[in-house]
């Protein structure tokens, strides 16, 4: 059977761990040539090694998505070296916690550089690179971008921006057959949530609010990204796909 991403070139930001790493591995399993991008070299190397051990094709670029020229330069170089770009996954994230009343302007802005500016820089470059042959952009938002989350005001605002930016990009890209969609993760077991989920009480409070009564696994997010990136989703653009165990469909949950 033909693999679902045969002959596709994919670029995944924040590809060294969590959802990004799982996505890179999954796309490569389905035949894509995957380039993972991130700030730290070691985790990227590990992901590439895992993919190659499984017989897949992968490479990595060390670049900080909050650094426009480094990030966009890496995308350009990859497109040149591999002969184009078919899939971009804007997954890199940076955020800080804190009470709104005490938040500095600097901290507020720090929530936007990687998440919003980075998504814009990546999407803009992808729309240039994909103009001839079309392509698929998948932006990773968060359930915090749909519902406001206490102590994460900057992150909530930034992820909401990603969702609506993606809709505008979908509308503009459609004429060139560039699809742009959003995956909205709920609570997922990743290095980013490890701290919170390692406390039994915090974990049980969290899962209690999820209709499926468990947190998500990075592989479950990766499958959603794969679907939207693949030709199976050829008529899907401007869509949001929540992968959250039903959390977002739940207005309230009776506490026991």
């Amino acid at each position, binding site marked *: 059977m033909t693999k679902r991403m045969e002959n596709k070139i994919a670029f995944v930001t924040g590809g060294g761990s969590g959802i990004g790493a799982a996505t890179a591995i999954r796309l490569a399993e389905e035949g894509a040539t995957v380039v993972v991008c991130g700030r730290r070299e070691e985790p990227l190397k590990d992901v590439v090694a895992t993919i190659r051990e499984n017989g897949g094709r992968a490479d990595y670029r060390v670049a900080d998505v909050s650094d426009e020229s480094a990030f966009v330069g890496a995308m350009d170089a990859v497109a040149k070296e591999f002969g184009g770009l078919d899939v971009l996954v804007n997954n890199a994230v940076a955020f800080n916690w804190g009470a709104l009343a005490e938040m500095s302007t600097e901290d507020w802005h720090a929530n936007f550089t990687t998440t919003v500016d980075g998504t814009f820089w990546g999407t803009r470059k992808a729309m240039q690179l994909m103009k001839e042959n079309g392509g698929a952009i998948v932006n990773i938002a968060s359930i915090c971008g749909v519902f406001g989350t206490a102590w994460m005001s900057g992150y909530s605002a930034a992820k909401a921006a990603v969702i609506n930016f993606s*809709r505008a990009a979908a509308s503009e890209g459609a004429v060139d057959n560039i699809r742009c969609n959003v995956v909205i993760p709920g609570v997922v077991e990743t290095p980013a949530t490890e701290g919170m989920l390692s406390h039994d009480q915090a974990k049980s409070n969290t899962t209690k609010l999820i*209709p499926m009564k468990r947190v998500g696994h990075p592989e479950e997010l990766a499958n959603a990204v*794969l679907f939207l990136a693949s030709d199976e*989703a050829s008529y899907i653009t*401007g*869509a949001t796909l929540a992968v959250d165990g039903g959390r977002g469909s*739940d207005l309230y949950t009776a506490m026991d």
Partner: protein
Amino acid sequence: MKLDNKVAIVTGAGQGMGRAIVQHFVDQGALVYAVDVNSDAVNTTVGSLGEQAYPVVCDITDESAVKELMQRIETEQGRLDILVNNAGIGSVDGFLETPLETWQRVLSVNLTGAFLCSRESAALMSKAGSGSIINLSSTAAQTGEGPCHYVTSKAGIMGLTRSTAKELAPGGIRVNTLVPGPTDTPMMADIPKEWMDAMINAIPLGRLCAPDEIARAAAFLASEEASFITGQNITVNGGMAFL
């Protein structure tokens, strides 16, 4: 393959999206009970699919007929993994001229039929502690473009999805809605050309949806790949409306 060894029901299997879903599910390894009120139509659907698809003539608005279908599946397969509530009807009626009979008939097939199939399927699925229900809504439920009975029924589907998703999640049953944009099916054949042209103009991808594109999205939601996805409305509409 995505749906190897899965047992599925697809309603409205005699044409359009339902036919495409049956074909794609069989391609992906599922065993499909293809349900329709029209026996010729459903026989045509399963015609070349061999032993992987059974034609079933059943009126989904008939409670006892739906129960009978579930009993048959339980006896023959011992379980049910997937239900696709695709059966739907509609007609072009101005609001002021809509006959009560038409209103009731559309709600009965599009909404009550989905309710009955969901309830009876969920009972069977919950014995195994897993299952996936996929409901078909319509972009018309978002935009209001369309006859009142059809739009109302398709908006109701979204409520049915949210309510059942939440209630059935602890039992391992996922429920999601596909929200197709205008799709190239026989149901669209009666739509006046001016409406059609206006519709296509409003679609950023600049074309109608192919039934197979709905089928592939349904297969994704039905598969293990969507294991953490429930309660969602997923648009397949070429970018024409956001949800």
